[in-house]
């Protein structure tokens, strides 16, 4: 079955941005600074570069199957049993990250604003809107992502405004206060913030023009990395390293200090608008999970799969988890997504080249 073209190249990039950016913008500066100290922003830039490399490899795999997504070509490459096993792992990974994303946002909201509301309620709302976004299929999800990113984009200017120029010394010397092992640990924890870029594997077959999308992957990754670096620089220079490592969501704290004549607390507005980005991230994971499930059980309808998966996620999301615990879980499993996708992509590439070579050497083709 050939995927229906429904997204533009620009939307392809926006989907990658939306899938990534919700995971780390509030918590990443603290998580990385804890281990990397002043070098936090360099670690983030480095992880961004590594992720771009993996994304480029993933893109290469996807380009070998222009009309299919991993739910289809994984079975061709790995065979029906191994393929289904891989898809099952993918399903678990997607569900885990969708729930984690919703839970982090819910925990931030209930710890800062709605103190008496159970965080499960907020997480459930995020998941319900995510299910709605996935029901709109990839084209609808891409359009939703576009508008949500546009709505949030102006807030980025505030981070530039917040940077304290006289505290630039906090960003140097780069490697002065962290060992290599600390930097490696910080990189692993930063990896969580880049989870979700693998949506490109699923979005690629839906592209209208499958030309030059690697450039799109590049700008999307550069954009996300730049936002993470910018927020980390702003948080580091404004709060200082010691204070920053004590705050769970330093980015929100610095926004709460920013003032305008109309709105006193920008962080609240940022949190409201951020829901759109969180929904994109959870929805892209949910979309990947849905397609994986459809690959495992052939012939099941798209809508029924989403509704089933969404209901399942709603059930497992229930229960309040404090923000500190959710952030800790994300830091522990931060590199799981990246490792899983990186290993899968390399294996797939090898298999593709073996398959090509065997076809080339076959006596009669």
């Amino acid at each position: 079955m050939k995927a229906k073209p429904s997204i533009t190249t620009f939307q392809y990039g926006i989907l990658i941005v939306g899938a990534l950016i919700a995971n780390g913008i509030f918590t990443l500066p603290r998580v990385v600074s804890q281990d990397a100290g002043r070098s936090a922003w360099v670690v983030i830039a480095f992880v961004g570069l590594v992720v771009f490399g993996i994304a480029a490899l993933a893109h290469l795999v996807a380009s070998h199957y222009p009309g299919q997504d991993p739910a289809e070509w994984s079975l061709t490459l790995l065979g029906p049993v191994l393929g289904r096993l891989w898809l099952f792992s993918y399903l678990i990974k997607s569900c885990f990250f969708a729930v984690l994303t919703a839970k982090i946002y819910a925990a931030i909201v209930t710890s800062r604003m709605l103190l008496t509301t159970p965080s499960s309620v907020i997480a459930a709302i995020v998941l319900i809107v995510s299910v709605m976004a996935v029901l709109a299929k990839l084209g609808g999800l891409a359009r939703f992502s576009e508008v949500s990113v546009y709505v949030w984009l102006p807030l980025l200017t505030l981070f530039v405004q917040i940077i304290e120029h006289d505290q630039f010394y906090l960003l140097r010397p780069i490697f002065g206060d962290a060992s290599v092992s600390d930097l490696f640990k910080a990189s692993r924890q930063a990896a969580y913030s880049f989870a979700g870029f693998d949506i490109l594997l699923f979005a690629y077959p839906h592209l209208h023009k499958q030309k030059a999308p690697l450039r799109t992957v590049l700008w999307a990754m550069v954009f996300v990395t730049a936002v993470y670096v910018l927020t980390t620089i702003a948080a580091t220079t404004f709060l200082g390293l010691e204070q920053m490592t004590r705050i769970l969501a330093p980015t929100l704290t610095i926004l709460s200090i920013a003032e305008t004549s109309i709105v006193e607390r920008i962080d609240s507005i940022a949190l409201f608008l951020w829901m759109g980005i969180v929904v994109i991230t959870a929805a892209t994971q949910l979309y990947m999970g849905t397609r994986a499930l459809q690959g495992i059980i052939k012939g099941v309808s798209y809508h029924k799969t989403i509704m089933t998966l969404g209901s399942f996620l709603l059930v497992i999301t229930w229960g309040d988890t404090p923000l500190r615990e959710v952030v800790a879980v994300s830091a522990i499993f931060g590199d799981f997504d990246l490792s899983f996708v990186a290993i899968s992509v390399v294996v797939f590439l090898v298999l593709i080249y073996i398959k090509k070579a065997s076809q080339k050497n076959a006596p009669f083709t």
Partner: protein
Amino acid sequence: MHGNSIHGDTNVVKGVGVVNLWQKIKDLLDGDDYIEDKHSQVPLQGFANDLKYLKSTLGHALDFVTREFQLGVTGKRVAVLYIKSLADETKIASEIVLPLTSLAALIDDPDVRHKPHEAKQVLSASNITELTDLKQAIDGLLIGHTIVLVDGLRVALDIDSRAKLGRSTTAAEIETTILGSKVAFVEDCEANLSLIRQGVHSPKLCIEKFMFGSTDSKRAFLLYIQDLAAPDMISELQERLQAVQVNELKEINYLQSIIGISPLSPFPQAVYTERPDRVTGNLLEGRLAILLDGSPEALVLPIGFSDLFQSPADYYNHSLVTVLMRGLRFLGFLLATTLPAAYVAAVTYNYELLPTSLVFAVASARSGIPIPPIIEALAMVVVVDILQEGATRLPSKIGQTVGVVGGFVLGQAVIQARLVSPLVVIVVAVSVIGSFATPDYRISGLIRLLRYSLLLASAALSGIGIAAVWFAVLTHMASIEILGIPYLRPVAPLRLSSMSDYIFRKPYRGANPDQSDRLDKEQHL
């Protein structure tokens, strides 16, 4: 309403056979309307029998006229049948009855049954059809045609004798503009077509006819300009129109949901306009228009959400003025939907959003008010909506009085009684005024729906509730595609080239302004 028609003999359908009865119950349970088979025929069976059949079918109507007379030496009988209230009697007298006397010679011809064409030529009326099916004759009579039965003639003659009913063209009443064309559509489809023709002087204007209703009595016209409208879009709409099976299509407003374009969505997905200039403008932008018999409005599609904020007056104003007005309309929409909810969220949960001086002002305004902000806001919004609904139903002068009494007197009274704070009156008033800023009046229903949803969400979950509702609405809007065109275009997918007539309107210079936003499926996806 895509019901499957029950084919076969009408008697069989009406019978009490267990299988047919079960089929009918099943169809009703499935939500499919029972549709009488329009293909069954009642063939002509001789002058006397045919006349008897027509009289027995329509004879109970007071305005059904049967004029019988004998012609020629042989005294052959002729019957002229029509419905007085639908047909033009002067035309019948001069173009049908009078020429029939010339038919006397023909009637005397023993081979008359083989010469229906000659009989046709005798009549001076244009648009004469030969019928062999009496059901078609009844259909013709019901739309104002005259049926002529001649003893010995093997066909019945159906002659278009429709009276010019209804009104002549008048000025637009709903979509009024200060500048530009004033004329509005009327109930007569032909008149509406000619109004559109006056605006589009192009041989590429295509007009296609579709028949609706159990008796094929309702005509709809699909209009588009070849080479401007995308072929995929045209063929999709043609297929949808051809698939329509309804017993009765009263108004063009039903057509949008009948042709199956997101019938469950509360968002307007087609422009219903009474202005021919708006239709011609849209046709020139590559859109499609539908006219329906008896409807003084045209349906234009596909549209995007942004089209709901455009007014015909935009094209008569300077582009900068247009930019300002469109921005204000969109702001009006946002205020109308979100302001009461934002007020409730701000004074209940998120007072940290407000500057300190404003927090004190709000607190002093609310001091002594016994009811919580949500009840206060909800009560005011409900009262204003009831007033608005009441004013719409009443004659204009009384409606204005109701508006004044409701708006000023009631508002002043509740503030003095300290039932609500003056702030909530201001908030609700701004919200209601904002809802009037949108040029498409159909959006007011959507505004109310969103206003209530947002109010309840803000009371439950503060600004997070408002964000949740808006993002849910946004996912819904992102999911809508009308004839393959995304509802959120040109914002999502982003098309900078199409922005020239979105919030901005480029000044007219050089290129044909009407084609600046030409819809092209490939371009927008």
